[in-house]
């Protein structure tokens, strides 16, 4: 059987090779598909920090994804319209700079995750699922009723935001940016999983009492994981909005939270590259089966059923046949 790290390398090499091949053969749509995979995998990596390491089944991660999207949309729309966001105490006209947008998305995602986590992490099990879902839906309905930023219609950004030294309108260059951010997020997950913090978090999901008896506070461990998770997912949201040059309330919808979770379940919960495998499979099915039938989600549902019944470790688990070290 293949070792998980080899499989991860093959997956990431494949995700890199396909758009490079598409660039050489002048197939920009394939590059966009690969970029979509990288961004959605990044969102999955974010959720996997909470779900895989901390056992936190959050059905509200679309809130952070949407916050990232709207951080991009609001900053860029003001900049493109030369319409200041605020004038006092200083003039701020928004920005078209990706690094500033990413930083804003990460900070806003972190703040939202902190506030949501402070309340929701006092519950567990089905109550935690429901309370995170409720928070996600609160953001969804708020964005619908926010006419200043497009309400139900969303916000369009005419030109993709910029990154110093790169032409982000070139699909391969934008893909490269997203791929590097995905690698950094995977590195963060890998480091966290092996750190004392990650081990304690994993221990806390197995027994709160034993971890408390060793002098640690499971609530604090989970809150930190939830905030990091929210930050990574918000960054993915900002990139997703930039990819589409459009942001709308659907980024906050519970279906989005469900999709991010599906990536992880398909790929393998707590597997480092589980979200990459899951997002790649999801986008591939959406692209191919979507062309065959509008009801392609039926096939996705059947696949999900098969994975849950026969491959509990997801695609990666089925291929490496080994329990994840941190599940």
């Amino acid at each position, binding site marked *: 059987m293949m070792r998980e790290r080899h499989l991860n390398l093959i997956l990431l090499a494949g995700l890199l090779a396909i758009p490079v091949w598409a660039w050489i053969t002048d197939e920009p749509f394939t590059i966009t598909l690969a970029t979509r995979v990288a961004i959605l995998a990044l969102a999955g990596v974010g959720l996997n920090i909470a779900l895989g390491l901390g056992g936190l089944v959050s059905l509200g991660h679309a809130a952070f994804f949407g916050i990232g999207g709207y951080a991009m949309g609001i900053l860029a729309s003001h900049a493109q319209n030369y319409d200041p966001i605020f004038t006092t105490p200083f003039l701020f006209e928004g920005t078209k700079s990706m690094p500033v947008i990413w930083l804003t998305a990460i900070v806003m995602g972190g703040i939202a995750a902190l506030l949501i986590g402070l309340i929701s992490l006092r519950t567990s099990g089905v109550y935690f699922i429901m309370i995170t879902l409720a928070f996600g839906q609160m953001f969804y309905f708020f964005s619908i009723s926010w006419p200043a930023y497009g309400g139900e219609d969303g916000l369009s950004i005419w030109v993709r935001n910029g990154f110093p030294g790169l032409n982000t309108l070139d699909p391969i260059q934008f893909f490269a940016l997203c791929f590097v951010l995905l690698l950094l997020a995977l590195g963060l997950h890998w480091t966290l999983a092996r750190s*004392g913090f990650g*081990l*304690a978090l*994993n*221990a806390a999901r*197995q*027994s709160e*009492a*034993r*971890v*408390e*008896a*060793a*002098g*640690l*506070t499971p609530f604090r461990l989970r809150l930190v994981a939830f905030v990091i998770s929210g930050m990574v997912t918000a960054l993915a949201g900002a990139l997703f909005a930039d990819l589409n040059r459009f942001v709308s309330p659907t980024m906050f919808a519970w279906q989005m939270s469900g999709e991010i979770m599906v990536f992880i379940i398909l790929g393998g919960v707590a597997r480092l590259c589980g979200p990459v495998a899951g997002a790649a499979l999801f986008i591939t099915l959406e692209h191919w089966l979507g062309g065959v039938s509008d009801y392609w989600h039926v096939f996705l549902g059947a696949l999900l059923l098969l994975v849950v019944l026969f491959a509990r470790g997801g695609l990666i688990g089925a291929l490496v046949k080994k*329990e994840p*070290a*941190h*599940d």
Partner: protein
Amino acid sequence: MSLLTLESVTAHYGPAQALFGVSLSIGEGEVVALMGRNGMGKTTTVRAICRMVETGGGLTFAGQDLTRLPSHKAARLGLGLVPEGRRCFAPLTVAENLSATARPGHWDRTRVEALFPRLAERRDQTAGTLSGGEQQMLAIGRALMTNPRLLILDEATEGLAPLIRAEIWTALAELKAQTGLAILVIDKSISELGNVADRAVLLERGADVWTGAFDALEPALIERYLGV
């Protein structure tokens, strides 16, 4: 001055009272055996010390009132618990189990592995695949990695093979001789306890009924309170 003092400690599980007034003390470097038949309140006394159950009465550790502290804060004062039934973090490896709850101090992985060489051999193996004895060693090692001032062992050798029991008792004797760590130990093996314990506290129906030097435990007491 004693490190841990219990004064007429009571404890309840919901409406059911489990402790009716346990008093005991443990000094620095002292090994105390907490003994009694099944259901007499030994584990509940440990849970009371570790703040895992609501208690009444006086409970101080290292000069601090434990009754006002939650479990994790009490542990941070220096309580290292080896719970009944081993209870390792099964999916984590031996090394990860040791690191997960470690705090800085004298005890690190090298010292724990020197005390229990079997753990060094099994370093990268998941705890769930270890034998019962190895899991017990890991549970003790994990508690030591929190660098406690008082190590509490609840039935540490229960259900283990004689050879493994001997290894664990040897390690406890080493701990006592070399580190001067205070230990509260619950066990049913009187002869093995006798090799390490300085004093004994006998419990009967949730209250202490006899406290004294371990050597002063007479056969009549043992028969009456331990049924042996």
